[in-house]
């Protein structure tokens, strides 16, 4: 009876989910409630977790709960510590959930709510969550070795090196695009700029408090920090209304970009306890708190979605970024569906904390499902806006025109109603001077969140909610920026250490300054170009980041597939092989189009050539002509970078297929580097008690 009840329950979940999904997918014309998206998502996650993830755990990977994990065998009380699974889940989720799943869906909403939502759900369930879980499992069986090391041990030197170089480059692009998002949110906004600036001294106060005043009292210090952050949002409003003070924080994009570059360098060189660690505490609390608040607000408010299911921009003419639905929706969503970066976390800190192998399903697969859910909420926040407003905020001036009246006329010509007065009213409500052409996704997400929060918890404070949302986005974007620069520095020191021992020492100051400068110069360059680009820069950098991130995911899936085949599990290799094949198709098509397309909005070379012709014939304004040579150079650089990414990917793929072919024809291959079975004493003790 009990079993039958369970079966009926799961059939009900399946039917309900299918009903919600059909409602979303087939709905045309009428607006649809956001709750349907949430319902479809939750049902799909539940079924995937209960059946697919359980099947992978039991049949494909064969998790063994009697086997001692590295945390148990190598327990040293520092990095290897057997930890309760909920705590590991918390750490893992806090590590993987960054700004990506918030920005990607916001940008991809230009295709309508349907394509992005479907990919967030399908991609996570069949791709992203599988990648995270499989990588976590293989790393756990190899003493928590990193993705790069596993690639080297299992596939070969080429695969290992490719993973390492790929990771480094993706980090550079990622930080640049995140920096650009923050700059665009702060541009000519004294309120946003002063609030974001205030987060730096606040983090330092928290850092000093938990280091020296009350050592180790992490929660006390964080509570003080959170209160100060909230105060800084109020104080920003006060500064914004102050005649002289507001001019101190009212800046163009370029000075703000320089400030971020200087900040990034300082954060990489300063000791972690002063800035990086306390900022990370604040950002983690803010992130978890705000995501929870957003979920509650969506359930209370049940907003209607105003964006059509599919817009005309699936044909590739979208204003936010150029390119057709396939492959660009998959490149743009990035982290909310499948993120190669997660493989670094799943093969880094997390496997060293696992108490038992059976927790891998919940942490690896479940963690990604929660991240995907965050992406769904970002999609909702973007699509509850009137489409006209959404496009007015997100379309760069280079596409719709610099003057409000031109932009409105252009957006109206696409069939989306919006007026200059409406945008001015919205900007006034949000406490901003203008909301036109605030590209990058952060401002439109903040407007969406502010209207959801405002409607759910009181409309009078829209401007406060808006700047709270900006502060929330900025604080963890800057955390990723700090942490990324630092990781980039460590990677570079590690690589240079092969040539010069002294350069490899992480505490040798000249090496610290040298390598930090290289990393900061790398992302600083892309940030600078992004800021001077009249098309907003995001339309170039985000696809580049997406390609790099999906390429890293493909490398992780290559490693997983290779190990599965070598373990004699060829018949299950499709579990990772299928998402791998899809990612190869997506990234290769996207890269091909970015390099060879003759459409100036898509192809890098085409854009460079177009700009060069215009420059030569003198039709550009003096302002545009001044930056044109740099933009042309950058378009060429981006094209070669894309080419490099796709070549790296194919080299790893061919290396992996070659290895599989050798294994299957009985020729010798690199041996599996799995650590031999050792019985877990934790389980025995538990059984004995």
């Amino acid at each position, binding site marked *: 009876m009990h079993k039958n009840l369970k079966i009926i329950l799961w059939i009900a979940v399946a039917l309900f989910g299918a009903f919600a999904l059909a409602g979303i997918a087939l709905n045309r014309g009428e607006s649809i409630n956001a709750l349907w998206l949430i319902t479809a998502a939750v049902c799909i996650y539940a079924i995937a977790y209960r059946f697919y993830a359980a099947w992978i755990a039991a049949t494909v990977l064969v998790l063994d709960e009697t086997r001692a994990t590295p945390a148990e065998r190598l327990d040293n009380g520092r*990095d290897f510590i057997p930890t309760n699974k909920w705590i590991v889940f918390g750490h893992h989720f806090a590590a993987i*959930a960054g*700004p990506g799943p918030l920005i990607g869906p916001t940008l991809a909403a230009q295709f309508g709510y349907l394509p992005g939502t479907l990919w967030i759900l399908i991609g996570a369930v069949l791709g992203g969550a599988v990648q995270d879980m499989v990588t976590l499992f293989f790393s756990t069986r190899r003493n928590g070795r990193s993705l790069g090391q596993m690639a080297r041990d299992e596939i070969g030197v080429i695969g290992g090196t490719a993973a390492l170089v790929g990771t480094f480059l993706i980090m550079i692009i990622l930080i640049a695009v995140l920096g650009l998002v923050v700059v665009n949110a702060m541009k000519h906004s004294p309120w946003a700029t002063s609030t974001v600036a205030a987060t730096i001294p606040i983090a330092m106060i928290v850092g000093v408090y938990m*280091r020296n005043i009350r050592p*180790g009292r992490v929660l006390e210090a964080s509570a003080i920090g959170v209160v100060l952050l909230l105060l800084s949002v109020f104080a920003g409003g006060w500064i914004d209304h102050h005649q002289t003070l507001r001019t101190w924080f009212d800046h163009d994009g370029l000075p703000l970009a320089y400030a971020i570059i200087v900040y990034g360098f300082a954060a990489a060189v300063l000791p972690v306890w002063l800035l990086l660690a306390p900022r990370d505490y604040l950002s983690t609390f803010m992130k978890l708190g705000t995501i929870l608040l957003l979920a509650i607000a969506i359930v209370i408010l049940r907003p209607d979605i105003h964006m059509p299911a599919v817009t005309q921009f699936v044909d590739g003419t979208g204003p936010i970024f150029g390119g057709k639905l396939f492959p660009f929706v998959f490149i743009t969503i990035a982290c909310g569906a499948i993120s190669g*970066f*997660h493989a*670094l976390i799943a093969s880094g800190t997390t496997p060293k904390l696992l108490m038992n192998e059976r927790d891998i399903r919940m942490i690896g697969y479940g963690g990604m499902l929660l991240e995907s859910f965050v992406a769904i909420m970002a999609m909702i926040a973007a699509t509850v806006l009137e489409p006209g407003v959404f496009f007015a905020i997100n379309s760069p001036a280079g596409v719709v025109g610099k003057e409000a009246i031109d932009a409105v006329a252009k957006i109206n010509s696409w069939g989306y109603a919006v007026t200059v007065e409406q945008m001015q009213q919205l900007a006034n409500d949000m406490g901003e001077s203008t909301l036109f052409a605030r590209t990058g996704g952060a401002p439109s997400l903040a407007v969406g969140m502010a209207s959801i929060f405002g409607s759910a918890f009181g409309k009078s404070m829209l401007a406060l909610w808006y700047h709270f949302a900006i502060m929330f986005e900025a604080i963890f974007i800057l955390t990723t920026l700090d942490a990324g620069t630092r990781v980039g520095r460590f990677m570079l020191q590690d690589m240079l250490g092969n040539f010069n021992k002294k350069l490899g020492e992480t505490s040798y100051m000249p090496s610290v300054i040298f390598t930090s400068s290289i990393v900061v110069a790398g992302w600083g360059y892309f940030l600078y170009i992004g800021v001077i680009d009249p098309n907003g820069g995001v339309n170039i950098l985000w696809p580049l980041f997406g390609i790099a991130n999906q390429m890293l995911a493909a490398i992780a899936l290559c490693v997983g597939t290779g190990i599965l085949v070598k373990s004699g599990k060829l018949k299950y290799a499709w579990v990772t092989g299928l998402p791998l094949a899809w990612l190869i198709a997506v990234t290769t098509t996207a890269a091909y189009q970015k390099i060879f397309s003759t459409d100036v909005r898509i192809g890098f070379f085409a854009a460079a050539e177009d700009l060069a012709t215009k420059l030569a014939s003198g039709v550009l304004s003096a302002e545009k002509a001044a930056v044109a040579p740099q933009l042309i150079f950058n378009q060429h650089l981006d094209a070669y970078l894309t080419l490099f990414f796709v070549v790296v990917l194919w080299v790893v793929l061919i290396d992996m297929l070659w290895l599989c072919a050798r294994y299957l024809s009985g020729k010798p291959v690199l041996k599996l580097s799995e650590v031999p079975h050792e019985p877990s004493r934790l389980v025995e003790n538990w059984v004995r008690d």
Partner: protein
Amino acid sequence: MLKKLKHIWHMIRDLSGDNAYEQYLKHYAEFHQATVDTPPPLSRKEFFKLWQDSQWKGVKRCC
């Protein structure tokens, strides 16, 4: 109810590392019985320094 809240509070302390020093003392008492030549446990301040530095090795944050 109170027990549940206590449990949640304990989880938050675990997650944030607020009780890392207490955990360390427990680990110390369990594994390093005080004999003549074992050093005494670290002070809260010393321990926190080491702990915080070890927390920030490798990739910690993602996109």
